[in-house]
């Protein structure tokens, strides 16, 4: 392990130990934060007794649907927008300031439109994630080196062959970034939606236990979401780096 990684680990561990100490000695009241060890043990009980299963199933299904939708729709519309420069010029200002729109304010509207079920949530995750994929697709298609396009012409490739053998492989790193961002945004969108207005899922469980003054459950769930997000991100980062390395060697 490098010195940087060791220091990072030490900082996180020290922070946890300090929190444990402050909460155990009562310097921070149990009503505000509970000791990390208590969070972990309570999370373990929740997981072992299966109390979380329903909420987890709901949340993960929503994230998966929103992610799949935003990647496919985002990629297809990204490719279409790239092929139509006129449309692209039209949409450019919207795409540029897309993430300045606070989409959560549309959530009530979506409930009214789609009903009080999973679809408003999926829609929030989708509008969050899809734009990242559109932008990444446009970026990737823009950055295909001109030389490679010429290679396609020299080899008299058909349009289909050019796309499959040249354009898509060249755009893969950008598309992967789009995938990563879409997943992160879908995750954020779904959990936030559940937290604010929905009646089910992990986000709702956190809000519910806050309202019920059930600190152990609330902190256990927060720890769970935190660990999940970190695990998801670091595995995608690892995968991306492997992809880049292989590309560098080829």
């Amino acid at each position, binding site marked *: 392990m490098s010195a940087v990684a060791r220091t990072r680990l030490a900082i996180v561990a020290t922070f946890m130990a300090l929190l444990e100490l402050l909460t155990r000695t009562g310097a921070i009241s149990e009503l505000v934060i509970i000791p990390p060890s208590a969070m972990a043990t309570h999370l373990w009980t929740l997981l072992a007794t299966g109390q979380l299963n329903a909420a987890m199933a709901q949340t993960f299904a929503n994230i998966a649907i929103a992610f799949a939708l935003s990647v496919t729709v985002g990629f297809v519309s990204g490719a279409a927008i790239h092929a139509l420069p006129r449309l692209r010029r039209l949409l450019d200002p919207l795409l540029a300031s897309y993430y300045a729109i606070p989409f959560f304010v549309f959530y009530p509207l979506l409930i009214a439109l789609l009903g009080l079920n999973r679809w408003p949530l999926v829609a929030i995750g989708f509008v969050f994630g899809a734009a990242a994929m559109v932008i990444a697709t446009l970026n990737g298609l823009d950055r295909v080196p001109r030389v490679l396009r010429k290679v396609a012409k020299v080899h008299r490739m058909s349009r289909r062959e050019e796309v499959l053998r040249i354009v898509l492989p060249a755009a893969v790193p950008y598309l992967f970034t789009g995938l990563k961002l879409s997943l992160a945004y879908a995750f954020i969108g779904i959990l936030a939606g559940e937290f604010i207005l929905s009646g089910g899922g992990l986000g709702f469980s956190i809000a519910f236990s806050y309202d019920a003054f059930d600190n152990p459950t609330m902190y256990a769930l927060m720890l769970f979401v935190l660990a999940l*997000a970190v695990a998801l991100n670091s595995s995608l980062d690892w995968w991306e780096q492997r992809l880049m390395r292989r590309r560098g060697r080829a």
Partner: protein
Amino acid sequence: MSAGAGSVQPRFLRLADALLLLAAVVAIWQLVYAVAGEVAITPPLATLGFAAHLLGSPVFWRHLSATAIAFGASLAIASAAGVAAGLALGFHRFSGAVAEPILTALYSLPKVTLYPLVLLIFGLGISAKIAFGVMHGVIPVILFTMSAIKAIDPVHLKTARALNLTPVQTACTILAPAVAPEIFTGLRIGFSLTLLGVLIGEMFASQRGLGFMIINGINTHDVHTMMAVILLLTVFALSAGALLLALDRRLHHRA
């Protein structure tokens, strides 16, 4: 994105494009209204009328000023703290390398789930909203400032040494112009995210602000208020975003 296309394009064409986009949005809106009806959504013209009516009511201004104060304070704290931390982490390479993955992990976290923690620490009220806004906005500012410092061309610093500049002169004439565009991009993203954080804070466990107005609108089936506030907020966020983006591009082109 086709950043370059904008500058060559004649102005009237750009204006036509903007109008076309606006017309498309209004058309889709009207279509949704036709499908969903009065219970869910109000039509564009009626919403605009009600928004104008809201702008004349003192209640709206009370909520608006609550949001504006919280947003202003969060933005000020997020910018100052973010730039300061980013400068420190950028100049001290080792701390920067240690902190960066932690920061990116925090950045991609669904921070809403941490809102109860903020509420327990800061209590109900404006300070929790401000803290939550800062939580959203500060990380991109730190990350962009850090990468701006790391991306300074070493030749520029060598030039400063060769010219025997004092540290203050170096900071003013070399460092500041070199890092300004990147830091501005960070502040622009911080602006949007801080607004998002404050609004989410108001939507949950708050009695004041525009976010509260929206949530209250849905809870009391006051579709008019909800739609009008959403419209006003979206217009504000989009125009502020577009303005900052235009400044951002100009700064980057000059550099």
